[in-house]
């Protein structure tokens, strides 16, 4: 239930996020910086408001708060569709006010939902017989987030393409920016284009570029008319994607409310549990803690939050400096064989085929499973091969595509890592949650060591192989799986029962601070040498890992006393 409710909400959230900046630029002509400010503020709200949501849920009840969170976020996404669909009914200023209101409403809704669902999942594993499975449960829960996040950009882009296609247009993501350039006079930029044109043949003017798109799409009218019609149509496309995001919230709500019976027993605050026990005339089994014990645990959590902020600082370089690295220093053309990993139509069937192969040769697989697995293997290989034959000898890759490796790796690696921890547990060697977090920090450092070597290698080649970045994404994903779901599980274990929601909110608050730090560190990108930049990330994450191990006894004691 929690897996699907979370997947629906995350799908909705990332569908909206995938196009949000583009929407602001298309609709309001924002520069990248202005749109980035909106985006940054919104993200901070999304990750910081769960603290408030946690405080509310700890008093009011988790299920109730989560339900209201979904409803409020749904309302926010509906409000977000208004400017695009109303097409000029509101003035530009009012449209912007509507957008701001919608973002506040969505942040509030997500604040009520996100951390508290984690708290509720944690409570499902409070019983001693289930407690050992809590880490694995959160690993699987985490996979739900990433399946939602992985599918979202495709849903958003498909919605936009569909609406544009109905108006006879093709999707061209540079058009809003070009239309914005065309909408205002640019005396200096025009001159500078001329200056560059004088020395480098083929330098393009934005009007020429729009003209080319206009001809390509068979539009009859002026460049200005084309730019206006295209951006209006694009806005409707974006609003349709926001509407899909809202529908996904409804699905999430239906799952959460419809399957209430599976979590009802755990959906109790300390006070509610006490009242229920009194009503039923039985002894209250909720763990009560002394103020001193609560304080000790909150300090342990605080220490983990501080360290984890550094993980997110390093990890969230993926959407920032690592994407710039992909754009500026990685080859933009790959062989058709390498391109198999860059096209979902081939990559997913290949992964399915590998999965099929594993189950085919596993000794413990029953005959039926082996037969199905062979079918999956043959189908996966055939599908991948059929698309592969249509590839050119070399294929272009976009820098943004590297970001999709993280959710794919999450989905693929989660069962492997869960299996690995199970294997260790059976042998009595499973590390404690804080140790997993510490190891996760070291693995993160390793990911940036690879980047450091790639920076050295760059000094002797003209463009880097994409496998440098893919390897880094792979290592960072392993680190994430050691750290993020395990961290949420640790919070669920250690949080004093009356602060479960607040503690999960604190975890997300640490993510918010990590995001801020990611931006701060990212500013060094243009100032220091590439290898120095990655070395800084290696050092910071190593220090964080060392810090975790330096306080491991405190953290393990906090975990033990909760088991």
């Amino acid at each position, binding site marked *: 239930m929690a897996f699907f409710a979370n997947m629906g909400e995350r799908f909705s959230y990332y569908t909206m996020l995938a196009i949000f900046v583009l929407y602001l*630029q298309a609709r309001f002509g924002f*520069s*990248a910086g202005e749109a980035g400010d909106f985006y940054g503020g919104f993200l901070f709200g999304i990750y910081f408001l769960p603290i408030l949501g946690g405080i509310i849920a700890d008093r009011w009840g988790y299920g109730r708060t989560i339900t209201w969170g979904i409803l409020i976020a749904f309302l926010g996404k509906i409000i977000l569709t208004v400017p695009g669909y109303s097409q000029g009914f509101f003035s530009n200023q009012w449209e912007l006010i509507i957008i701001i209101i919608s973002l506040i409403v969505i942040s509030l809704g997500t604040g009520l939902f996100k951390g508290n669902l984690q708290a509720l999942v944690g409570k499902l594993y409070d019983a001693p017989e289930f407690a050992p499975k809590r880490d694995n449960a959160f690993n699987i829960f985490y996979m739900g987030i990433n399946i939602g996040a992985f599918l979202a950009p495709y849903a958003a882009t498909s919605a936009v393409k569909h609406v544009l296609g109905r108006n006879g247009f093709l999707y061209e993501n*540079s058009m809003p*920016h*070009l239309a914005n*350039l065309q909408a*205002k*006079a*640019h*005396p*200096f*930029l025009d*001159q*500078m*284009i001329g*200056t*560059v044109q*004088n*020395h*480098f043949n*083929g*330098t*393009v*003017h*934005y009007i020429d*570029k729009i003209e080319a798109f206009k001809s390509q799409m068979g539009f009859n009218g002026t460049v200005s008319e084309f730019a206006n019609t295209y951006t209006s149509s694009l806005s409707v496309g974006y609003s349709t994607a926001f509407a899909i995001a809202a529908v996904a919230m409804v699905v999430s709500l239906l799952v959460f409310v419809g399957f209430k019976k599976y979590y009802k027993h755990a959906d109790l605050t300390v006070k509610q549990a006490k009242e229920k026990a009194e009503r039923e005339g039985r002894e209250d089994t909720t763990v009560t803690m002394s103020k001193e014990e609560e304080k000790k645990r909150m*300090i342990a959590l*605080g*220490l983990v939050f*501080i360290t984890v*902020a550094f993980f997110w600082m390093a990890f969230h370089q993926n959407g920032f400096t690592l994407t710039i690295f992909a754009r*500026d220093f990685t080859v*933009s053309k790959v062989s058709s064989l390498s391109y198999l990993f860059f096209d979902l139509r081939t990559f997913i069937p290949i992964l399915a085929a590998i999965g099929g192969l594993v189950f085919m040769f596993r000794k413990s697989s029953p005959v039926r499973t082996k037969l199905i697995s062979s079918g999956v293997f043959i189908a996966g290989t055939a599908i991948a091969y059929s698309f592969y034959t249509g590839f050119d000898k070399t294929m272009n890759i976009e820098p943004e595509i590297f970001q999709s490796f993280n959710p794919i790796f999450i989905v693929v690696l989660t069962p492997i890592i869960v299996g690995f921890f199970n294997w260790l547990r059976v042998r009595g060697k499973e590390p404690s949650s804080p140790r997993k977090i510490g190891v996760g920090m070291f693995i993160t450092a390793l990911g940036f060591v690879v980047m450091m070597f790639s920076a050295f290698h760059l000094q*002797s*080649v*003209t*463009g880097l192989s994409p496998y440098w970045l893919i390897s880094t994404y792979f290592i960072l994903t392993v680190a994430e799986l050691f750290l993020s779901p395990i961290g949420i599980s640790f919070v669920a274990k250690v949080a004093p029962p009356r602060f479960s929601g607040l503690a999960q909110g604190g975890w997300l608050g640490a993510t918010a*601070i990590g995001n*801020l*730090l990611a*931006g*701060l560190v990212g500013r060094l990108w*243009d100032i220091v040498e590439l290898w120095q930049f990655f070395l800084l990330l290696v050092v910071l994450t190593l220090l964080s890992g060392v810090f975790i191990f330096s*306080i491991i006894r*405190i953290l393990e004691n906090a975990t033990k006393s909760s088991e």
Partner: protein
Amino acid sequence: MKNQIIVTASFILSLIVFSGCKSESGPLNLQEEVRVLKEIEMRSTNIENKNDAFNVLRDLNLNIKDIRNKILDMEERYREASESEKAQIEKTFEQANKEIDRSLGIISKNTEPYKDIEEVSKMLEKLNEILISK
């Protein structure tokens, strides 16, 4: 342990606070960008192989991107400026444009022999669109 928390938390907080204190508007001229361009121009006089040509053009692309961003900021200011301010901004731009023109001429000449090499031509393709890209 409390001290450790206080020190680390203060460090993070100060990073956040100081980041908010940075000046939002740098000097509105192209001096720094022109200085970097002149350095690239100097390097272009010592190009010995395709790697050198590639590196020069890669850095030129980054520099032209900075120039584009600064120009867009200048135009933003220009639109709201008084007549006298407008004249000043125009003058600043004209001066910078002359120097940029001269440097680009030299860089273009020095990279010309390598323009048909795949990696170099890719950098030139990027350069062609960098002023109008996002």
